[in-house]
């Protein structure tokens, strides 16, 4: 048998039918649903008198458009959308972790937490950051609302196979430098379209040494490199994370499953269409300075000068980004002063992320110049675990707000948003114009760097804390 990549294996296992032109009917094992991209899909089912093919494969949760502050009055328009999800789930027999459920949280945090995300699965959701689940040796990717309806109705998607790409993170990450820094630096190197048309496997010593939380951060950001999906081979770290979770197999079934999952890695000699090797051993904490995740620099660097860019289209993009961000070329990154700090999102809202931020914050105070510092845990479970460890007190005593789980200021659909011109140190995934609020300026960073920025009132080297 020819050597296969991890992606080849996942793909082969899920092809129901292959048309002559190479279009596959791909079976979907797990469908995650949230309130913003699903109402039109459920309406579509109703209009065509169709039912979900396998309602038991679907797990729904409201996360994008919900308040995170205690006792906050919910916007009535948002409330309608949250109510529509509850109504649709109940009408179609779909399990929902609703607003009153202690398991509620960001869809990409709760899937793994409850073992709804398993190795070897195909996993889709009407959300681009579905790539997160690839950390478990799964084929996971975001889809649009028409495809949400298609999966609901048929349990399948029409797909063309993507190209195989492998990113090898070699070396060991230095202290104070984490998964977020590695993946931001990678995007800086290959560009926001560097993974277009590819399923990207992350490999190498640095990935093998990562926790599942860190691996999820890396795969989460695969979409910011334009990849169709990101994924990581199954190893003991994966199995240890999954064992005992609510929806994970147990007993004899666990033994069968884990034997199967151990095959989920690229074979020696498997062919990749594109290979990138990236030594992370000298990497510094990363901070984005522009309006695309590819516009990124190390904490010790300065805002680049567009005049030094030879390509006129790129130069113009840089100039436009710096105007929007109100930054001057040559300004040291350490001199940039955020107005707000956001620690949260499907990229960095897990327990390990909160621990990393809390260890920087502990015993210190948020700088007076910071108008708002938010910590938004990724799920009800993360929140409870963090509180058991006393992390909420560390944050509160320093001057952070400790919120309820949700997507919050990552996309600013709820009340958590930047005012025009405000600058934010954010652990989220996108620094697009207006992403965190019209006119808002986003700098993407790791949880540790966000915490350090909150304390210092400017971007600071977490390694000096």
């Amino acid at each position, binding site marked *: 048998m020819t050597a296969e990549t991890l992606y080849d294996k996942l793909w082969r296992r899920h092809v*129901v039918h292959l*048309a002559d*032109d*190479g279009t596959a*009917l791909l*079976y979907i094992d797990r469908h995650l649903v949230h309130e*913003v*991209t699903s*109402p*039109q899909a459920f*309406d579509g089912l109703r209009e065509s008198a169709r039912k979900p*093919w396998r309602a*038991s494969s*679907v797990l729904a949760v409201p996360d994008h*458009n919900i308040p995170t502050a205690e006792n906050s009055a919910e*916007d009535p*328009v*948002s409330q*309608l*959308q949250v109510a*529509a999800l509850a109504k649709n789930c109940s009408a179609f027999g779909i*399990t929902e972790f609703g607003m009153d459920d202690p398991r509620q949280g960001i869809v990409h945090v709760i899937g793994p937490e409850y073992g709804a995300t398993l190795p070897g699965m195909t996993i889709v959701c*009407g*959300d*681009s950051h579905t790539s997160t689940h690839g950390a478990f040796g799964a084929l996971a*990717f*975001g*889809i*649009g*609302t*028409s*495809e949400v309806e*298609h999966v609901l*109705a*048929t*349990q*399948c998607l*029409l797909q*063309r196979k993507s190209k195989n790409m492998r990113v090898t993170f070699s070396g060991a990450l230095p202290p104070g430098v984490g998964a977020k820094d590695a993946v931001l630096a990678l995007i800086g190197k290959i560009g*926001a*379209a560097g993974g*277009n*048309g590819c399923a990207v496997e992350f490999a190498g010593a640095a990935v093998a040494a990562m926790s599942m939380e860190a691996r999820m951060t890396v795969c989460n950001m695969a979409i910011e490199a*334009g990849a169709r999906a990101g994924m990581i081979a199954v190893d003991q770290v994966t199995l240890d994370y999954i064992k005992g979770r609510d929806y994970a197999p147990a007993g004899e*079934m666990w033994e*069968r*499953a884990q034997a*199967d999952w151990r095959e989920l890695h690229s074979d020696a000699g498997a062919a990749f269409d594109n290979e990138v090797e990236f030594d992370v051993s000298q990497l510094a904490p990363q901070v984005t300075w522009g309006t695309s995740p*590819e516009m990124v620099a190390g904490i010790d660097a300065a805002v680049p000068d567009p005049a030094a860019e030879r390509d006129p*289209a*790129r130069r113009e*993009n840089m100039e436009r980004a710096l105007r929007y961000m109100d930054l001057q070329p040559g300004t040291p990154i350490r001199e940039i002063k955020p107005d707000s700090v956001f620690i949260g999102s499907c990229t960095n809202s897990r327990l390990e992320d909160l621990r990393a931020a809390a260890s920087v914050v502990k015993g210190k105070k948020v700088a007076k110049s910071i108008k708002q510092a938010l910590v938004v845990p990724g799920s009800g479970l993360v929140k409870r675990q963090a509180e058991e460890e006393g992390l909420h007190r560390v944050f509160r005593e320093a001057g952070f707000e400790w919120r309820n789980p949700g997507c919050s200021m990552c*996309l*600013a*659909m709820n009340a958590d948003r930047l005012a025009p011109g405000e600058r934010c140190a954010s652990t989220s995934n*996108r620094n*697009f*114009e*207006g992403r965190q609020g*019209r006119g808002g300026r986003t700098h993407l960073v790791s949880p540790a760097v966000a915490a350090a920025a909150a304390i210092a009132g400017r971007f600071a080297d977490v390694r000096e804390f």
Partner: protein
Amino acid sequence: MDAFTTLSGLVAPLDRANVDTDAIIPKQYLKSLKRTGFGAVLFDEWRYLDQGDLTSDHAKRRANPDFVLNDARYAGAKILLARRNFGCGSSREHAAWALRDYGFRCVIAPSFADIFFNNCMKNGMLPVALDDARVDALFAAVESQPGYALSVDLPSQKITAPDSEEIPFEIEAAQKHRLLNGLDDIALTLEHADLIRQYEDRRKKEAPWLFGRVA
């Protein structure tokens, strides 16, 4: 889905790379429960100087005179000319719905983000990828020739310029077939219902843990 066969129309140039779906339609409009009515808020933050939401009367908002689509010269454009990695970011299909509702049926760019590309196809819109040099030439032509229009012919996979130059483009056969006929993908897939059931029966034996109910 509406079929796409041929299209002739004015071309509007959007000269920036990495146009993301947050720029195509910002988040506050994603609170809608509908698929329609997003044309008025396409490129909202570039197009208007004031903030809008689902309850705004967009006709009364302040237009940004510097934004290309507010230039009377491009009124009624049906083809959008863009730069690399168009439609990157979020999976929101609202981006495709907004472009379509505004009147665009075709987007030409050097490259597209994967999810956006699929979303276009699901909505009777044709995304055409052409090489950088060709896109550069089209930008120069659109900007120098008021009223610059193109004719897109999907059956023959050709775009015809005003000087009769023909520009061939690629599209996968299956996608072309579905667009030309405006086919309902779900109905087509359900023609394979037996195959899907056979697949499930086999996988339930091989990997039963994939079929546990989440509850």
